[in-house]
């Protein structure tokens, strides 16, 4: 919730709050607060809190006011110490929720500090309101004893205000960030759900080669193929267009989802080079293979439907079109990959710098190779040779 700087600042502030509160509490309990003027004897008796307790008939209300201030000081001390534990919890990352509560509780010291200051002023006002009573001065100084705990209260208030500001802002930032981090999650889930639903909808529409076998009549197959060809023709333009895009896009050929159009790269000595498409992979797909097998098996199997010329034409045209589209795809992929990879001939990289040993003086030195053959001259003995 809080970073180190805020924690350090809060720690120092808490120290001051605790110190000022303890001092205020103790000073309030024993310092002489009120001077009672006896009109008959013209003498003035000084009362502190302990003495007020003994003479409750005269100063009972005043004592209660001071006791309330003492209770507030107690609360400030306890809360500020607990907030220190909260900082420790935050840093140790243990009991984080408890730590957060303690840290935020520390902000409550501001309220109690305000109350301390207010009750001081109320006490001073009450004493001033009485005829025979006055606040006790510190010797000849114009400062009254009650001002000392009041200063402690003000110090506590200012420190707790700084604490509340630093912790409060950090907490607000934290909670805002937490909210933001929580918000996008359900959207993602929704999107996932949507996509899964779409996929579910799409998947049953795809006709796999297995379904081809389920066709009973030749006419059904022909009709299906015609439909396929028309779809291919439609999607042909769509396939050619995304060539400029760097990322591979799936071809939206629904019945051909099982067809794997992959361009395999062979790594020759750690450097990938694109294998020529025509040599590596036969363009006949599983679907086509099944048809070809059917073709071959046709004369063998008696009683099956014979191949019509229109079917053969449709099949051949479909295969040709598919090959054409795949070739175009491969070409575009090559164009995309070549600038990234910067295929440099292997020899140029390896043979650019050579470490050779002179057969005469056995001196080892490095040479730069330019072209296929380079003449080498030993820098030590001067023996000449050729490196091919």
């Amino acid at each position, binding site marked *: 919730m809080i970073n*180190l700087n805020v924690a350090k600042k809060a720690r120092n502030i808490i120290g001051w709050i605790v110190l000022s509160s303890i001092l205020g509490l103790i000073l309030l309990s024993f310092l*002489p607060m009120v001077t009672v003027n006896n009109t008959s004897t013209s003498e003035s008796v000084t009362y*502190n*809190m302990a*003495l007020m307790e003994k003479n409750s008939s005269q100063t009972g209300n005043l004592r209660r006011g001071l006791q309330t201030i003492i209770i507030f000081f107690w609360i400030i001390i306890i809360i500020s110490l607990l907030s220190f534990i909260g900082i420790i919890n935050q840093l*140790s990352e243990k009991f984080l929720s408890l730590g957060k509560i303690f840290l935020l509780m520390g902000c409550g010291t501001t309220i109690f500090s305000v109350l301390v200051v207010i009750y001081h002023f109320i006490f001073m006002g009450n004493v001033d309101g009485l005829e025979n009573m006055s606040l006790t001065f510190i010797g000849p100084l114009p400062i009254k004893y009650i001002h000392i705990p009041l200063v402690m209260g003000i110090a506590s208030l200012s420190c707790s205000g700084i604490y509340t500001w630093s912790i409060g802002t950090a907490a607000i930032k934290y909670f805002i960030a937490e909210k933001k981090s929580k918000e996008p999650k359900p959207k993602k889930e929704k999107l996932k759900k949507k996509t899964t639903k779409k996929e579910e909808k799409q998947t049953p529409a795809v006709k796999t080669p297995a379904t081809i076998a389920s066709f009973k009549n030749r006419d059904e197959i022909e009709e299906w193929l015609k439909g396929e060809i028309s779809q291919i023709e439609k999607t042909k333009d769509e396939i050619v267009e995304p060539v400029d895009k760097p990322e591979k896009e799936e071809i939206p050929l629904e019945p051909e989802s099982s067809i794997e159009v992959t361009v395999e790269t062979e790594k020759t000595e750690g450097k990938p080079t694109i294998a020529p498409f025509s040599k590596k992979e036969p363009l006949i797909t599983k679907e086509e293979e099944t048809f070809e097998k059917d073709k071959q098996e046709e004369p063998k199997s008696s009683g099956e439907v014979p191949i019509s010329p229109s079917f053969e034409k449709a099949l051949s045209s479909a295969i040709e079109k598919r090959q054409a589209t795949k070739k175009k795809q491969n070409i575009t992929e090559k164009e995309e990959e070549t600038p990234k990879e910067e295929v440099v001939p292997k020899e140029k990289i390896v043979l650019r710098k050579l470490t050779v040993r002179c*057969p005469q003086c056995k001196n080892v030195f490095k040479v730069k190779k330019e072209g296929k053959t380079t003449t080498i001259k030993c820098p030590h003995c001067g023996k000449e040779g050729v490196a091919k």
Partner: protein
Amino acid sequence: MDQNFTLDETSGKKFKEHALDESFKKAEISRSLQSTHKGTPGKIPKKENTSKSGMLLIIIAILAIVCMYLGPWAFIAYDAEYIEGEGLGENIWILRNAQAEDIENQDIMNLFKNSLEQPNYIGVAISDFTYTPAKTIGGFIALVILGLIFFIFQIIDKFLKFSEGTFMTAHSFFAVFVIVINVYIILTVSKFIGAYFQIAHNMNLEQFPNIQTIIIFINPIIAIILGFGIITYAYTIIKIHYIELEREKISSNVRHSFFSTGLGGGL
């Protein structure tokens, strides 16, 4: 290639070995750096830094109880006129549970006596020598109990092995309790300190006992000194925990930046 000039394979191997050595050295350096960052706070286990605090608290509290129980609560020297060969005139040592009958001198008795006709003017009554020591001793007994609980907690920790965070939190709670109890003790005995202010202000009164006295409230002063000392110690314990965690956080940040720069990852 010409047969006379052969590729020097050994030099290539040497170069490879050299490169490998360098990379290993870098790895070792990085590992040692990591260990130093990690190790400095880790060398001394964090729990051991404050492990004796419970025992120390018990010892201090027991000493304080003995002092409060047997020691004098007030020393009063009245009619303090120096007589050669005899020293001060008369001395009074007021102990715990002191009664009015124990004080022979009437002026000094009036100093602490509280009656409706003539209130005491220093805020400390004779009865305060009974109730305040009881409260103070009770506070120190509470400290002993807290120390014992913490000691038992440490023994349990040896078997159950709590995490450092749990240990620190528990220890901090103990420290907070210690601070609160000590503030209570100081608050209880503070009226004896207030008596000095009262004497200074009310000495000119006609009713005020006409005595030349030297009053020292010994036990209250000791209790206040001990109380402030223990508060400082307890607060320091919490601070030590904080500093340890801060160091750990900083070191963990260093480690993190170390890996992110790629010095380690590059190897």
